């Protein structure tokens, strides 16, 4: 049977905030744009973002983009690229206004302006008093934004391929990306989408860990496809564990709870964050708070019969604030923890939440890799934006409220740059049959039935392995062990067999592809972590407790071929202002 084919100017893989904000720019510019998503767009995980999006609007307290930039650089433990960070913090302001103009139902202040709340790691005046920078629609900000972006794409008549799963990028001999092979989930048939430009906006990979705030769909598909196309992944050792997941389950309880006045207590009823971060206390950076919680539990001050969590208290602020500002959290806590936060504290423990690393890009969303002319040469026809990308604005640790910002700013920037790329590259490059054949082989990988390992079995083993060997605290031999185990798991992928060989809506086949992707990404995390001999941001090593700027102020690049690592310098020079040199990071 001949392979079905479609042709577009631009192909966007992923329909979360980054993909949809890029798509709007392209559709508004009359480019022919296809958005491929393995789920209906409003199911994308942007929908689950709770607390809000940072922008120095100064609606509540004095603020400036420059203070926002300082906080982001410091939060990144100085690993973030300062040109990209300056760009993001400046762009934040018009980006939030644009969202509002497009219909996002932000919560409001008495003067009619957008409501802003305090979040972790935010300060006024370069490290002074707490700032209030996070623009919120109650505690459903991601939902409000994603639905609005989808609605605007409906208005712009973007072409959607809903419930299509991307299998592999198609490239030519020069490494240029020519589109992707995708599978229509409903029919199980392959489809080749040819495009002058492909934008990866596939989101995160939290599913590699057993306990995670991430959705079932966050399996690192775009990152893994990039790896297999020869693109490295940057800074993958930096994985954020959000301090307040519901204990034992992992569902997210927004930092906004602490922003609205909540705090953490241990079994003695002590506000222990005062010991770890005397100034910022419960609103210290996420890496700091997560380590504090794990330490409390390890040292025997955890709560509950097993002593395996701490408590997040908010009832002292009163029912009115909780009902108005945190209605979704109240609902989640009731359903999943069986407590009403208006009366009782919520049991919490860190949960795998966000990958700071990803596909290396510049601030226009162009994917850049080491090549002939230096460490950052653009791959023709390939862009990436959002959590799957690494610009890098988050460095070694992301601040709360900067992830919605990242996807919106760089989704938009990528969309705009694609428009100019299309002007300079008006024609499709010739299709490369060899690459299509290779992609077809990947598509048919699980077509052989019979006896073998099940996807569920291997997946359970893998996610446990990641949790045990690449968690909040990391030591050398445990990490090395993890790398070996993942290598073995990767080999056992060849023994996976699907009992279900049917075509129509075969979710077992989708999950098998996802497992391949997760293991590729898991190896990037584990190996990059095992090599970095320092503690920085979310990468915390008791055997190397200090940050080492002399040897390690550099980005890691993991290549799938032969599992190798390379490094490139951090861009410490901002666009217009003075650089923020590395300093000791205290909160």
């Amino acid at each position, binding site marked *: 049977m001949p392979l079905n084919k479609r042709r577009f100017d631009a192909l966007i893989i992923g329909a979360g905030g980054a993909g949809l904000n890029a798509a709007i720019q392209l559709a508004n510019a009359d480019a022919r744009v296809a958005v491929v998503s393995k789920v209906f767009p409003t199911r994308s*995980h942007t929908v689950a973002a709770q607390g809000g999006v940072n922008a120095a609007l100064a609606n509540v307290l004095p603020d400036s983009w420059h203070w926002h930039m300082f906080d982001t650089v410091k939060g990144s433990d100085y690993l973030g690229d300062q040109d990209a960070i300056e760009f993001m913090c400046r762009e934040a302001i018009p980006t939030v206004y644009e969202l509002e103009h497009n219909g996002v139902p932000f919560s409001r202040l008495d003067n009619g302006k957008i409501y802003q709340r305090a979040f972790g790691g935010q300060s006024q005046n370069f490290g002074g008093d707490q700032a209030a920078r996070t623009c919120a629609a109650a505690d459903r900000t991601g939902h409000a934004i994603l639905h609005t972006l989808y609605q605007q794409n409906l208005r712009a008549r973007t072409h959607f391929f809903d419930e299509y799963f991307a299998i592999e990028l198609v490239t030519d001999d020069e490494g240029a990306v020519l589109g992707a092979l995708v599978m229509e989930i409903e029919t199980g048939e392959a489809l080749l989408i040819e495009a002058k430009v492909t934008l990866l906006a596939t989101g995160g990979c939290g599913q590699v860990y057993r306990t995670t705030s991430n959705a079932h769909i966050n399996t690192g598909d775009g990152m893994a496809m990039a790896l297999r196309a020869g693109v490295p992944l940057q800074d993958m050792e930096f994985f954020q564990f959000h301090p307040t997941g519901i204990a034992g389950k992992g569902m997210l309880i927004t930092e906004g709870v602490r922003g609205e006045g909540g705090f953490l207590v241990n079994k003695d009823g002590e506000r222990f964050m005062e010991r770890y971060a005397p100034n910022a206390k419960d609103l210290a950076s996420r890496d700091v708070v997560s380590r504090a919680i794990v330490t409390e539990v390890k040292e025997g001050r955890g709560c509950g019969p097993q002593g395996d969590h701490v408590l997040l208290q908010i009832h002292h602020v009163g029912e009115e604030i909780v009902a108005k500002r945190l209605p979704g959290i109240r609902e989640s806590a009731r359903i999943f923890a069986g407590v009403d936060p208006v009366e009782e504290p919520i049991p919490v423990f860190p949960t795998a939440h966000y990958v700071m690393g990803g596909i290396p890009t510049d601030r226009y969303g162009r994917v850049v890799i080491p090549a002939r002319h230096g460490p950052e040469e653009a791959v023709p026809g390939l862009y990436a934006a959002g959590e799957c990308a690494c610009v890098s604005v988050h460095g070694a640790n992301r601040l709360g409220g900067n992830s919605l910002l990242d996807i919106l700013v760089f989704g938009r920037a990528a969309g705009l740059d694609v428009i100019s790329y299309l002007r300079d590259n008006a024609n499709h490059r010739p299709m490369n049959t060899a690459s299509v054949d290779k992609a077809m082989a990947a598509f048919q990988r699980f077509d052989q039935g019979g006896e073998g390992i099940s996807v569920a079995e291997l997946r359970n083993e893998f996610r446990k392995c990641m949790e045990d060997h690449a968690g909040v605290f990391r030591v050398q031999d445990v990490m090395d062990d993890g790398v070996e185990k993942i290598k073995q798991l990767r080999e056992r992928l060849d023994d996976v067999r699907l009992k279900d060989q049917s075509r129509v809506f075969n979710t077992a086949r989708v999950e098998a592809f996802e497992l391949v992707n997760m293991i590729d990404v898991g190896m990037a995390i584990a190996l990059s972590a095992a090599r970095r001999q320092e503690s920085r941001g979310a990468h915390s090593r008791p055997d190397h407790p200090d940050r080492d700027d002399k040897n390690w102020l550099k980005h890691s690049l993991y290549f799938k071929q032969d599992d190798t690592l390379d490094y490139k310098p951090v861009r410490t020079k901002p666009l217009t202002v003075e650089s923020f040199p590395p300093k000791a990071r205290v909160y």
Partner: protein
Amino acid sequence: MKFRIYRYNPDADTEPSMQEFDVDAPRGTMLRDALLMIKEQDETFAFRHSCGEGVCGSDGVNVNGQNRLACITPVADLKEPVEVRPFPGRPVIRDLVVDMTQFYQQYRAIKPWLIRNDPLPEQETLQSPAERDQLDGLYECILCGCCSTSCPSFWWNPDKFHGPQALLTAWRFLADSRDQATDERLDALEGPYKLFRCHTIMNCVEACPKGLNPTKAIGHIKNLMLKHSV
């Protein structure tokens, strides 16, 4: 716990059947967890799901006769054997997966985006907290489809009647102080079907997992239309 699950695979089956499963369901098990355990027993079982916390709207199913979101439905509250079926009135693609095309078409038909004709201000458009409060109970919709697929009027006329979900969203924009297309929106709802097929049966209110009230929203639209026509 005993479950009876609707099974149909067009590749293999000529007609649908109910299949029984036994699942160990410790305290706190949600229906989605149970369905995942069933999938571990039998990987051919298909259903949609993603976030696991009731915000993405993927895993709407019919449980013991009621449309609900699997991920926020504790199994402890359900009568055994727990009967799980696809949404009623929608073509079945496979097992619990249904074709929601018409549901999405009705959503698109009401122009679910903010329409403003004024020039854009440099900053945000102002909106008082009281004006913003009008959107509470409306904007939280997650498009799961529990309401529209429990509505007899939608079962009969899914091509002509907008259904409770789309009408809730229509009111979300009519109620937004920033929107400037009231006349256009109301004109588009004229006629015997789009809006007026709602016979206030109120299945939608019962079904909504987010506690929203589409019937009330429809009432508001009808009132506004009345005022609009005089």
